[in-house]
C-alpha cells in the first residue's frame, strides 16, 4: 500500500501513512516507524530533478550530479556506469560469461519433473548430495537449512530473497530479467520439497523491470507451481539482506534484525519455521535436478561446488555478469574482463561494503566461502568493484564507510553510533581512534551489517596506510 501511494503521488505524506495505517488496522506509530525506515520512500515531495546514480562504480566512472540533477544511491546498473538514477531491465549483452546457470532458459521442465518424481525426503537428499551452498553471501549449506525447518514438523514458510541491496551486485536482477524460467524451475523445485504453507518472493523496491519480468513469467506458467507466490517489493535498505530483517519487513514491522536464537528455521515469518534463500541459490536448484548432483559437483571445489555469478563493475573494460566456478582466483576474473580501463588495476573491492579492498598482490586469493583475507575481503554475494590508476582509493574507502553509516538500521549502539564515527575519524585522518572504533563496531554489533562494516576501512588502512594518515 505504501508503494501504491508512492506511485500515485510521488511521495508519502504523513496523512497518507496515517490513512494506510487505518486501512490496515494497525497503530499509527507502527506504520510510521516502518514507513520511515526505508530509504526509497520519500517523506517529502520530490523535486523535479534528474536523478543520477552516485554508487561507487558510477562515481569511479565520473558520475557527478550537475545543476538540476540530484544524486541517488546505487541503482544497481553498475555495468552501465555512470548510469542514470533509475531502474532498467538488465541487458543481455551484460551477461559476459555464461556457465550452466546463465545458459539460455530451458524450454522444458526436466528438472522439476525429476524432482517431482522423488518423494520429499529423497529430493532433499539430492540437494544434500549436491553440496549446494547459499549464494546470498553466507554460503550456508542449503540442505542443512531446509532440514532445520522441516525438522520442526510444523508448516513452513519459504522466502526468496531478491532484495539485492548491495551496491555493485546485480546478479539477481539479471536472473529475473533474462533467465526467469530457470529461476521459476528452481522455485518450483523448492516448493515441492519444502511444501511451504506460505511463499514470498521479496524484491528490491526499485527493481521494477525485474518484477515485471518475474510476474510475466509467473503468469505464463501458472500450473508449474503449487500456488502463486506472494511477490512483494521492499523499500530499499541494505540491511534487508539480513534474514530476520527481511522477515520483519514482510510482516510489516520496522525493518530491523531480530535476536537469534530463535533462528528463522525455528521461528521466522509470523513465528513459523522459515527458510530464506537467495534468488541465485534457488536458481541453482534447476541445475542440480536437471544434471544431477554428481554433475553439479564437477564444477567448483569439493567444499563449495557449482558456480558463482560475479558482478563485476568499476574501472574494468567489460563490466557485467560473469559465471565462474567457485574457487576461481579474483585476478582470473579481471583477465577475462579485459583488464583496467586506464593504466593498471590498483585495487579491487571484493564483497562490497561488507567485504574489503585487495591490492594486486592478493589477487591470487580464490572466491570461496569464508574470509578471503583477514582484513575484510569476502566472496560474499560476488560483487567486485575494480579501481584503476585513475581511481581515488581513499575516497572509495570513505564512500564505503559512509554507506555503512547511512545504512545502519539504527537499532544497536555500536553500529548506529560507531559507524558514523568511523567515517568521521577516517575523514579527519584521526587514525589513532579508528582501531578501537572498528573493533567495537565489528565485535559488538547486533547483526552482520555492523559486524562486517569494518572490512573496507580496515583493509584500506592495512594496505594503503599512507593514504589515511
Amino acid at each position: 500500500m505504501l508503494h501504491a501511494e508512492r506511485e500515485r503521488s510521488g511521495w508519502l505524506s504523513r496523512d497518507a501513512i496515517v490513512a494506510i495505517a487505518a486501512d490496515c488496522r494497525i497503530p499509527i506509530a507502527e506504520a510510521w516507524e516502518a514507513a520511515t525506515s526505508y530509504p526509497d520512500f520519500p517523506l517529502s515531495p520530490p523535486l523535479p530533478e534528474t536523478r543520477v546514480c552516485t554508487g561507487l562504480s558510477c562515481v569511479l566512472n565520473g558520475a557527478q550530479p550537475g545543476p538540476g540533477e540530484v544524486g541517488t544511491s546505487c541503482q544497481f546498473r553498475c555495468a552501465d556506469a555512470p548510469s542514470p538514477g533509475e531502474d532498467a531491465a538488465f541487458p543481455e549483452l551484460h551477461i559476459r560469461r555464461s556457465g550452466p546457470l546463465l545458459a539460455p532458459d530451458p524450454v522444458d521442465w526436466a528438472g522439476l519433473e525429476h524432482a517431482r518424481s522423488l518423494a520429499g525426503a529423497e529430493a532433499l537428499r539430492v540437494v544434500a548430495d549436491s553440496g549446494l551452498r547459499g549464494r546470498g553471501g553466507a554460503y550456508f549449506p542449503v540442505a542443512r537449512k531446509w532440514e532445520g525447518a522441516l525438522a520442526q514438523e510444523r508448516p513452513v514458510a519459504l522466502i526468496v530473497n531478491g532484495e539485492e541491496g548491495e551496491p555493485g551486485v546485480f546478479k539477481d536482477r539479471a536472473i529475473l530479467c533474462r533467465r526467469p524460467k530457470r529461476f521459476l524451475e528452481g522455485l518450483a523445485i523448492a516448493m515441492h520439497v519444502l511444501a511451504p504453507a506460505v511463499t514470498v518472493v521479496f524484491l528490491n523496491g526499485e527493481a521494477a523491470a525485474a518484477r515485471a519480468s518475474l510476474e510475466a513469467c509467473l503468469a505464463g506458467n501458472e500450473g508449474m507451481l503449487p500456488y502463486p507466490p506472494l511477490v512483494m517489493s521492499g523499500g530499499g535498505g541494505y540491511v534487508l539482506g539480513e534474514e530476520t530483517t527481511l522477515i520483519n519487513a514482510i510482516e510489516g514491522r520496522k525493518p530491523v534484525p531480530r535476536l537469534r536464537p530463535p533462528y528463522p528455521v525455528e521461528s521466522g515469518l509470523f513465528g513459523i519455521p522459515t527458510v530464506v534463500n537467495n534468488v541465485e541459490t534457488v536458481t541453482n536448484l534447476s541445475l542440480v535436478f536437471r544434471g544431477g548432483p554428481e554433475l553439479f559437483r564437477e564444477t567448483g571445489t569439493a567444499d563449495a561446488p557449482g558456480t558463482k555469478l560475479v558482478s563485476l563493475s568499476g574501472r574494468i573494460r567489460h563490466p557485467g555478469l560473469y559465471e565462474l566456478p567457485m574457487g576461481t582466483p579474483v585476478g582470473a576474473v579481471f583477465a577475462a574482463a579485459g583488464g583496467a580501463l586506464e593504466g593498471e588495476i590498483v585495487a579491487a573491492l571484493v564483497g562490497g561494503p561488507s567485504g574489503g579492498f585487495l591490492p594486486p598482490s592478493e589477487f591470487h586469493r580464490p572466491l570461496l566461502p569464508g574470509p578471503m583475507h583477514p582484513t575484510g575481503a569476502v566472496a560474499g554475494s560476488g560483487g567486485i568493484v575494480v579501481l584503476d590508476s585513475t581511481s581515488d582509493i581513499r575516497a572509495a574507502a570513505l564512500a564505503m564507510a559512509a554507506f555503512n553509516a547511512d545504512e545502519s538500521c539504527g537499532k544497536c549502539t555500536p553500529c548506529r553510533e560507531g559507524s558514523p564515527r568511523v567515517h568521521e575519524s577516517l575523514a579527519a585522518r584521526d587514525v589513532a581512534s579508528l582501531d578501537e572504533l572498528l573493533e567495537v563496531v565489528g565485535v559488538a554489533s547486533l547483526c552482520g551489517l555492523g559486524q562486517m562494516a569494518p572490512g573496507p576501512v580496515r583493509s584500506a588502512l592495512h594496505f594503503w596506510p599512507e593514504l589515511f594518515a
Partner: protein
Amino acid sequence: MTLPAVLIDGAGVVASGSLLDAVLAAGIDLPHLCKDDNLPPIGACRTCLVEADGRIVASCSVPAASVKEVNTSSERAIRLRGAVLALTAAMIAPGPGGGGPLGGTARATIEAHPVAGAVFARSTGESVDTTNPFFSFHEEECILCARCVTACQALQHISAIGMSGRARETRVTPGAGATFRDSICTSCGSCVAACPTTALRPKMELSP
C-alpha cells in the same frame, strides 16, 4: 535430576534463562541498559558483553544453556564494554538527575565502569515534549535503548510510540510524528518506568 549449569567466572551457575539472567543471578553486577524485567530481551544497547566460549557475545541474547564457560571480566570484555559505554555516554547530555525510577541507571552504569576515551557527543534530537500532563520526553537524554517502545508495543500492546527513521535519524516518535498528547498514548507510564535515563521523566510530584 541435575539442572544444566554454566561456568561463570569459575563458579557453576544454574543455566536458566538468558546468559545475562544467569550472570546476574550469580551476583555479578554486569552492566546492562536495555534489559527490563517486564520485557523480552531487546539486544540494542550491547552493554552486557561477556566472553563466552572464547567469543564476545551480548549475554542478554544468548540462552544460558547454550554456553559452557563464561568470563565476564576478561580484558577484551572490559575493553569492549567500555567502548560501547563511551558511545552511549556521548548520547546523554549533561543535565539534572531525577527522572523516573530508573532514571539514574545509565549514568550510574557509565560511572561505575571503565569507559574508553572521549568520544564526541551526539544527541538523538533536541525536542522536548511536555504535552502530557504526567511526564515529559527530553530527546537529548535518549540513548535509543528501545525499552520505552518495547514496553508500549510488546507489553501494553498500545503502540502509541515507535522508533521512526534509521541510522542516526532514529528517534522515539509518538504516532506519525505527533506529540504525546495528540497520540493514542494513555499515559500508562510503562515507558517512564522503563527508561534508564532522564529522557522520559515524571512531570509531577506525587506528594506535595
